[in-house]
């Protein structure tokens, strides 16, 4: 597999098929659809972080001229205490319903309380002011540690910690405890010559997609309904909404619009079920578009975390044990990705003794949503910082230390399986051998290196390829295209069918046109949906051979197919794909290829990043001056978009490390809504992001694909953190490295 294969399209830098619409402004995103008779929905949100709703009266709003419907929590059908697939994990239906419209308590600043639909957006906003809500304000719990305190106010009086040996009888903010281990860490630490340990903290951060959540919905009198929305998984929007409203799946069509970024944050529902309630009540199509403040207040974010890590090693650098206690904030409802944190933190290392313990803790912040490699950056930040501390203590080069302990084929992971072939060593060697790693640094500059691991996932994907009588075809897939995946689907299908790229048009179908497909997330699309595309294309080829055989009066086994042409091995005949398609009416009707799969065998993708950072010691300002992202893609179907994933992940990680964080008042109010004060990186903040794409093929994918979306956000936290520590000559334990924090580090060092 690793020997260079002669591909016609795979590995080329083609023009993406949806590109024209996107550079001309014609592509239709979540907020871009309007329907005849459409009205506007708006949401009333809690001004408090934690309060009991003692009175909620919507009558004045309902009576206001121009208002056509109001929705509150009790409008949800009696939902059961049931877990459903939502986003990159599961969600409890009661929690989901209580998150999108508060039940009897509001649990974070911005928690939705009611919604109004009116003839214009302005009228809807005015009507919100007429809704009367009385609150009994409760003390807010704003960090996991505060929430875990014995006397902490409890968010949910019916939540009892799971995952303990005995389920407690006292309600707690600790939703769950998880544990993973191999070997015996105590024995491992006893063997160690050197031990490092530290506590590392990361802030609440938002995915920061530029497009706010938006939907336009229509509920018809006959019970048929439609949702148009920007989502990473429209089939999951269908599942969640249908369950919440007590509908059959066939009655609800969900159309995935073009999506303006998601990064995991658009894998759940917020407004869609509410809009459908408003549409049902008003008999009119309803559009709901969040403003930026609402996005920041009530969607996303990712878990803030508080993580303790301990590592032991022999003098020669052999790591003997790694241990961690990971505490992740879930936001208002249980379900942080702490389990993933435990599973990923130590996984770039082959160590016989590992122990990871995780706590999922509710606090008065928005319920977290998946964010690119959900759960991994926080835990791996702690582990990678500690590994760099270990390297310093051992006097070893941090890459050599990593190479000495690198996970490879056969390494036992903490979460169960042993690794098949993986590319971490290749990434580390590329980093070590890079010009960047050898370049000199000037005064006040520092360098940091870190690794990152993400599993990548497979899952269910459905694909149909419909061939037309002229030999062109439509690739019908169900994974919303968030970053150019239609291009890779087109390339993989063209490669299999042996026909020119432009003969194939990839589209993302709605939920009525195709069987269930999981959402775009977990770096699964090019891998899993790609496999479904390949299977569908192979199905087309099989049928092309059968049709040619029928025309030639031979058996299908006597027909060969290569480069878009069928050959009769029993004679001289040959026919192109287009010719066979044009005669399909004579051989049994038109040709459709199918690939409905539940993909297994996703290949992990390792990443290694190098960051050079300069610190202004007088102001604490930091400047990323050079950056290299190295990652194992397995196989880069479209190298430009693979590089783009590495670069985008790196820059999101840089933002997380340097300036992004939710700032709350003591009362638990979010103080930095909006892009002005939630500081994502801007163009002038950054250098070019150099990339090295490693290709260690994944044997389970026909072209070797692993998936590249997630891993790239993991290493920047510790690469930037270590670079800052080295530039200052100190230790870094907390993100973000905003100027006041950096200046303090400089001053404390003296």
């Amino acid at each position, binding site marked *: 597999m690793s020997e260079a294969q002669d591909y016609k399209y795979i590995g080329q830098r083609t023009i993406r098929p949806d590109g024209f619409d996107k550079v001309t402004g014609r592509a239709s995103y979540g907020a871009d659809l309007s329907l005849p008779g459409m009205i506007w929905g708006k949401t009333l949100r809690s001004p408090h972080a934690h309060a009991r709703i003692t009175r909620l009266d919507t009558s004045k709003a309902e009576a206001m001229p121009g208002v056509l419907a109001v929705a509150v929590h009790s409008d949800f059908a009696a939902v059961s205490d049931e877990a459903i697939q939502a986003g990159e994990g599961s969600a409890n239906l009661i929690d989901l319903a209580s998150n999108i419209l508060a039940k009897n308590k509001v649990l974070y600043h911005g928690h939705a309380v009611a919604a109004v639909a009116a003839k214009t957006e302005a009228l809807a906003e005015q009507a919100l*002011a007429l809704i009367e809500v009385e609150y009994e304000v409760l003390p807010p719990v704003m960090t996991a540690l505060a929430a875990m305190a014995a006397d902490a106010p409890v968010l949910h009086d019916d939540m009892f910690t799971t995952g303990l040996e005995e389920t407690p009888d006292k309600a707690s903010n600790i939703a769950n405890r998880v544990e993973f281990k191999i070997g015996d860490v105590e024995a491992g630490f006893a063997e160690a010559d050197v031990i490092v340990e530290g506590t590392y903290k990361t802030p609440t951060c938002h995915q920061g997609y530029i497009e706010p959540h938006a939907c336009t919905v229509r509920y018809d009198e006959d019970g048929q309904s439609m949702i148009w929305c920007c989502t990473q998984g429209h089939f999951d929007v269908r599942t969640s909404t249908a369950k919440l409203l007590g509908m059959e799946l066939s009655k609800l069509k969900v159309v995935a619009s073009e999506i303006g970024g998601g990064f995991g944050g658009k894998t759940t529902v917020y407004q869609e079920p509410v809009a459908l309630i408003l549409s049902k009540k008003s008999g009119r199509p309803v559009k709901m578009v969040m403003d930026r403040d609402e996005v920041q207040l009530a969607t996303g974010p990712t878990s803030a975390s508080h993580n303790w890590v301990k590592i032991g090693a022999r003098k020669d650098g052999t790591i003997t044990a790694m241990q961690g206690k990971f505490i992740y904030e879930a936001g208002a409802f249980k379900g942080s990705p702490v389990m993933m944190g435990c599973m990923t933190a130590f996984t770039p290392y082959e160590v016989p003794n590992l122990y990871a313990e995780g706590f999922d803790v509710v606090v008065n912040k928005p319920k977290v949503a998946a964010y690119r490699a959900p759960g991994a950056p926080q835990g791996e930040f702690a582990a990678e910082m500690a590994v760099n501390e270990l390297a310093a203590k051992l006097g070893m080069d941090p890459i050599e230390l990593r190479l000495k302990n690198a996970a490879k084929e056969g390494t036992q992971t903490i979460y169960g399986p042993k690794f098949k072939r993986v590319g971490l060593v290749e990434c580390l060697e590329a980093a070590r051998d890079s010009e960047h790693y050898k370049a000199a640094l000037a005064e006040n500059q520092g360098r940091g290196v870190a690794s990152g691991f993400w599993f990548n996932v497979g899952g269910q994907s459905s694909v149909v390829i419909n061939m037309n009588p002229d030999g062109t075809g439509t690739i019908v897939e169900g994974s919303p295209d968030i970053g150019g995946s239609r291009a890779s689907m087109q390339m993989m299908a063209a490669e299999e069918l042996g026909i020119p790229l432009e003969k194939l048009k990839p589209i993302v179908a709605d939920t009525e046109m195709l069987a269930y497909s999981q959402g775009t997330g977990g770096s699964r699309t090019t891998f899993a949906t790609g496999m479904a595309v390949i299977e569908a294309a192979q199905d087309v080829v099989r049928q092309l051979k059968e049709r040619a055989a029928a025309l030639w009066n031979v058996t299908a086994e006597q027909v060969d197919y290569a480069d878009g042409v069928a050959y009769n091995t029993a004679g001289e005949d040959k026919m192109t794909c287009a010719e066979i398609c044009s005669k399909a009416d004579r051989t049994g009707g038109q040709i459709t290829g199918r690939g409905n799969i539940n993909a297994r065998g996703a290949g992990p993708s390792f990443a290694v990043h190098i960051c050079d950072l300069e610190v202004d010691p007088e*102001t604490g300002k930091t400047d990323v001056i050079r950056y290299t992202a190295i990652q194992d893609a397995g196989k880069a179907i479209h190298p430009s978009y693979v590089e783009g994933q590495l670069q985008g992940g790196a820059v999101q990680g840089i933002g997380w490390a340097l300036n992004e964080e939710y700032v709350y008042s003591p009362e638990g109010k979010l103080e*930095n809504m909006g892009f*002005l*004060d939630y500081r994502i990186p*801007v163009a*002038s903040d950054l250098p070019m992001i150099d990339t090295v794409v490693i290709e260690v093929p994944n044997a389970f994918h026909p072209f070797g694909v692993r998936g590249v979306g997630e891993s790239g956000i993991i290493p920047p936290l510790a690469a930037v953190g270590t670079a800052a520590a080295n530039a200052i000559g100190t230790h870094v334990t907390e993100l973000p490295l905003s*100027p*006041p924090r950096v200046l303090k580090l400089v001053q404390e060092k003296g």
Partner: protein
Amino acid sequence: MAVADYKAPSTVSEAVSLLASAQMKAKVMAGGTDLIIQSKSQTAEPLLVVDLKRIETMKDYQLTDEGLSLGPAMCCAEFTALEDVKAVYPGLTEAAYLIGSTQVQGRASVGGNLCNSSPAADTIPALIANGAQCVIEGPDGDRTVPVEDFVTGVGKNCLAANEILKRIVIPRPAPGTADAYLRFIPRTEMDIAVAGAGVSVTLDADGTCTAARVGIGAVAPTAMLVPAAAAALVGTKLDDTALEAAAKAASEASNPITDRRGTVEFRRHVVGVLVKRAAKIAQSRAQG
């Protein structure tokens, strides 16, 4: 506030009488980059917007031997492209250039920045350093106010409800004078100043500072003139001791708050650093 009515007069007097006769709360708009965002706030109080951009004299400028007379509503993109102005007041040009993105520059103006009266407004310390005067027209005629007295509090200024800032007048600097403005933000762009400093110095033939003005921003309810910082520079050759003394004076004069953009300690410290660095830039410019 919600914009309920909009008028675009063609003279300042017409604008003044619109304000005087308004039946609802009225605000003048230059670029609108602050006002339009503020008008989207929750309350539905009706607002009359009086747009000054159709008044030609609000957008022109004259640079003479006397100095600069600036129409307050000229957008920053236009203002910062004025090479003749930049040659005389490079620090003011820099300050105007720092307001918002390229897109915001296409709308925002020096006068609007001043009248919005944010503690963090970039142009105000630079205007203070240059000794700018505000010419105000009201129903009873014109009056002139020094820029450091124009802003009276967070988002507040000395304009009466029926008055308009119609001109910003800046004296021509004495020979051997130059200015500079620096601000601190966490990113490289798109942030509001966490601290700002405008410095103007006049040097004699042997490089001794004979006069100075220091304005600081984002470290008190209003941008402020810091005479003690200027005094620390005058009579010196802007050596390290003098610069440190000016920095210390600025830090001591500051009265910042802790908010989502920075802490008291951080702002206090950084404003001193900015004064020091801006003074050095002004010095090198004055030495030409």
